[in-house]
C-alpha cells in the first residue's frame, strides 16, 4: 500500500514541520503518517466532511462580508513536541508579564519613557494610546486578561513572534471545537497519544474573571459583552458564554448608573461585576470615544475608573499591539523583568530613522510593510508579491507618515502537510496561542489555533481571507500504545523510556 505521504515534497526554502521531524525519526509525526496510511486519504476526507457538515449544522461559523462561513478544519493535525512547547509557554508568559507591566506604566507614571528606553513619541503618537484609559487599575484587576499572540516558525525552525494581540483576540472557540472534531475524525490517534487538553480554557477564563470582581462582592456576576449577531466572531462570544455558564449580553442590555453597571432583566435589573467584552475600545463608551456608537455602554469607562466594575480586557491595550511598540518588546522585557527574551521577534525596521527609511524605500520589494495599528492582515504589502503600483503607493505612504508603518523581512514561514484535493501538500501555517492571566498567575492553552493558508505558496492565513485551521497537538510523554514505524524508532523509544524511568525515580 502506498502512503499518501510518499509524494509529499517540501517547498524550497521553507521549513516543513513534517519533513524535518520525520527525517529526525520523530515518532509522533511518523505515527501520524502511518495512521493516515492505514486509514487511507479518502476515508480521512470522508470523515472530515461528515464532521464539517455537523459543525455548520451546529452553527460554528464566522461572518465575512455578511456571509456566514465555517472555518475549514484540515483533518491533519499539527504536532508540537512537549519540550519545545515548554519553552514557548515560558516565553509567552514572560512576554505577557512584561507587556502588562508596560501598560500599567504608560497609563501611569511612564517611567519607561523617563528612563529613555522607549521614545515618548512612540507612545504619545500611537493611535491606540488611550488617554481616557490613563488611570491605575485596582490591584485585583489585570489589563491583559486574554492575549492571543501570533507566532510563526522561521526558516530555521524556531517559533518567533509575529504580533501581539492584547485587545479582543478571537479564535479560541475554534481550538476547542477543532479538538472535539478531531476526536471524531481520528479517534485511533487519541487512543495512542497523550494530547494535552484544551477544554480547560473556559473554566480558566471564568476563574480569572471571577477573581477580578470588585472585592466586596461575594457572588460576582460575570457577563460576556458582544456587539451582536453581525459580528464576525459572534459564534465565539456565544460559545464562551455558554461554556462558562454566564449571560451573553449586548450593549443595549447594560446601563451605567452611579458608576455601577447593571443588566436589564425581565423583572428588574442586576448589578454586573465583571464584563468580558468583545467590543473594540473605539465603540465601548460613547461618552469618550465615538459619540455615534450604538454599540457602547455610556458611562462604562468611568464605572471602571471608579472601581464599580471590571472589564476584560482593559481599555487602551491597543498601544501595546502597535507594531512600533512590538519593535521595542525586547527592551520592554529587559526593563520590567530584567530578563532576556525567550521568544524572538522578527527583525523590524523602525522608519523614523531617516537612514532606515531610505533603506526600506530602496528595498521595498524584498520587505513586508505593515501599518502599525491595523489587525487582521489589513493594509499589509508583501514586497515580493506586490505590483509596481502597489509598491509605489506604499513607498509614498511610508515617506509621508513614517510613524504609521514598520517594515520586516519576509519570513518564509513553515509549512505543514495539508489535505488539498486528493493529495497531501505543504501549506504555510501560523500559530495563535492563547494566554489567560489572572492576579494569581497565567495559563497558556497547550497549542493554540494553527491557521493555514489554503492556496499553494500563499502566506495569508487570516480566516477573513480564506484561511483554514488545524488542530494543534502538544503531545506529552509516551504514547500509550506504541505505533511501530521502524526498528530504529523502537530502539530509540526504549532507551527514552529508560531515561524517563530514571528521571521518575530520581524525583
Amino acid at each position, binding site marked *: 500500500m502506498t502512503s499518501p505521504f510518499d509524494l509529499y515534497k517540501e517547498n524550497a526554502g521553507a521549513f516543513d514541520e513534517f519533513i524535518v521531524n520525520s527525517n529526525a525519526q520523530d515518532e509522533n509525526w511518523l505515527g501520524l503518517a502511518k495512521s493516515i496510511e492505514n486509514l487511507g486519504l479518502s476515508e480521512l476526507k470522508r470523515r472530515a466532511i461528515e464532521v464539517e457538515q455537523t459543525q455548520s449544522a451546529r452553527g460554528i461559523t464566522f461572518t465575512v462580508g455578511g456571509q456566514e462561513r465555517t472555518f475549514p478544519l484540515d483533518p491533519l493535525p499539527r504536532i508540537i513536541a512537549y519540550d519545545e512547547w515548554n519553552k514557548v509557554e515560558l516565553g509567552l508568559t514572560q512576554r505577557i508579564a512584561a507587556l502588562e507591566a508596560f501598560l500599567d506604566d504608560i497609563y501611569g507614571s511612564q517611567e519607561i519613557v523617563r528612563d529613555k528606553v522607549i*521614545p*515618548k*513619541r512612540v507612545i*504619545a*503618537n500611537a493611535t491606540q494610546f488611550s*488617554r*481616557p484609559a*490613563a*488611570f491605575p487599575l485596582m490591584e485585583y484587576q489585570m489589563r491583559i486578561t486574554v492575549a492571543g499572540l501570533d507566532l510563526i516558525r522561521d526558516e530555521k525552525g524556531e517559533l518567533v513572534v509575529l504580533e501581539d494581540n492584547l485587545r479582543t483576540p478571537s479564535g479560541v472557540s475554534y481550538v476547542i471545537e477543532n479538538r472535539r472534531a478531531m476526536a471524531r475524525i481520528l479517534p485511533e490517534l487519541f487512543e495512542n497519544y497523550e494530547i494535552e487538553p484544551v477544554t480547560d480554557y473556559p473554566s480558566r477564563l471564568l476563574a480569572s474573571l471571577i477573581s477580578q470582581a470588585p472585592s466586596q462582592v461575594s457572588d460576582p456576576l460575570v457577563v460576556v459583552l458582544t456587539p451582536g449577531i453581525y459580528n464576525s466572531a459572534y459564534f465565539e462570544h456565544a460559545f464562551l458564554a455558554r461554556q462558562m455558564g454566564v449571560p451573553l449580553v449586548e450593549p443595549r442590555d447594560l*446601563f*451605567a*448608573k*452611579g*458608576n455601577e453597571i447593571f443588566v436589564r432583566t425581565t423583572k428588574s435589573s442586576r448589578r454586573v461585576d465583571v464584563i468580558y467584552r468583545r467590543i473594540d475600545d473605539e465603540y465601548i463608551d*460613547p*461618552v469618550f470615544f465615538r*459619540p455615534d456608537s450604538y454599540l457602547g455602554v*455610556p*458611562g462604562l469607562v*468611568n464605572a471602571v*475608573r*471608579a472601581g464599580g466594575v471590571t472589564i476584560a480586557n482593559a481599555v487602551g491595550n491597543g498601544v501595546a499591539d502597535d507594531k512600533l511598540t512590538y519593535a521595542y518588546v525586547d527592551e520592554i522585557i529587559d526593563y520590567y523583568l530584567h530578563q532576556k527574551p525567550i521568544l524572538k521577534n522578527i527583525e523590524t525596521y523602525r522608519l523614523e530613522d531617516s537612514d532606515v527609511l531610505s533603506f526600506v524605500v530602496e528595498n521595498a520589494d524584498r520587505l513586508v510593510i505593515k501599518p502599525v495599528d491595523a489587525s487582521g492582515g489589513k493594509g499589509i504589502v508583501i514586497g515580493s508579491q506586490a505590483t509596481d503600483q502597489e509598491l509605489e503607493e506604499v513607498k509614498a505612504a511610508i515617506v509621508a507618515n513614517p510613524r504609521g508603518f514598520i517594515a520586516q523581512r519576509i519570513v518564509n514561514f513553515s509549512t505543514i502537510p495539508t489535505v488539498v484535493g486528493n493529495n497531501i501538500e505543504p501549506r504555510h501555517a501560523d500559530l495563535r496561542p492563547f494566554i489567560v492571566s489572572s492576579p494569581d498567575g497565567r495559563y497558556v492553552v497547550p497549542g493554540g489555533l494553527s491557521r493555514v493558508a489554503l492556496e499553494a505558496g500563499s502566506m495569508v492565513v487570516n480566516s477573513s481571507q480564506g484561511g483554514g485551521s488545524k488542530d494543534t497537538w502538544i503531545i506529552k510523554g509516551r504514547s500509550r500504545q506504541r505505533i511501530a514505524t521502524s526498528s530504529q524508532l523502537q530502539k530509540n523509544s526504549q532507551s527514552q523510556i529508560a531515561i524517563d524511568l530514571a528521571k521518575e525515580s530520581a524525583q
Partner: protein
Amino acid sequence: MKWRLEIIHTTKYTYDDDVFSSYNEVRMTPKNTSNQLLLSSSIAVSPRASLYNYSDYFGTSVTYFDLHRRHNNLDITSLSHVELEDPRGRGVRLTPAAMIGDDFRDAFSEYLATTTYTEIPKEIAEATYDSVASLDLIEDRIAVVMDFVKANLAYRSGITKVSSSAKEALGVGFGVCQDFAHVAIALLRSIGVPARYVSGYLYPNTDPQIGESSTGESHAWVEAFVGEWIGMDPSNGVDRINKLYVTVAKGRDYNDVTPFRGIYFGGQSSPPIVTVTMTRRA
C-alpha cells in the same frame, strides 16, 4: 499684586421633549498653576445627581454625572474662587537651534504632533517655517506667528463651528477664540515650538473694584514652550497673558479640554444659555 476672583459659570440646556437619561462630563474647575491658586470650587447640577470627580490624563479636574429621571432642562453651575497674579516666569529662553534636537522633539512630541483640529495646509506650514528661519530669537519667531494669525483671521462668531479645524478657519478667514487658538497652535508646531490649548475665563475689566461684578466669558488661548511655558492670547493679540486669565484646562486641542461633553437620550436640545459672572473679591 495678587487679586481674588469669584467665577460663576452657568450653563442651561432646555429640551423640547423629555430626556430619559444622560451621561455627562464637566471640565469647569480652575487649575492650580504657578500664578493661580484655587481657593474653593463647587459644581452643582439640576436635576440633582451624584457627582464623581477625577483628574484626567492632562491633570484637569473632571466632574462626571449621569441622570436617569425624566427631565426637560439641565443646569450646571460652577462656582470657584481663585487667587491670581501675573505670570512671572523665570525668563528661560531656548535658542531655536536647541529646539531641533531629537531629545527635545521627543520630550515634547505630544505638543508637536498635528491633531485633527490643528491641521493646516502644508504650504502655509512650510511658508511659515521659511519666514522664521533667519530669526535667532524664539520670541521673534513667535511674533511672526502671532502676526500671521492677526493678518489671516478676523474675529467673528457664527461662521465656524465647534468642530471646525484650523484649516477650515483659515479657509474662511473668520473664527472665534477656539479657532484662533487652533491656528496659532498649528503654526507654532509647524515651526517646531511645542504648543498647547488652554481653556478658561477672561475677565473683561482691566481695573475692577472689589465687589464689582462683570460679565466674563469662556475663553481659549495658547501656551508655547520656549524654555518654559508662556501664555499668549491670539484672539486678542495679547503677547503675554496676565491675571485677567483664569486657567481651567490644558491639552493638545479643544478635544482634550471640552468644558461639557456627554450624550443623552430623549428630546432635542436648544443651544445652551451660558453665562459667566466674574467678581473681584479681594
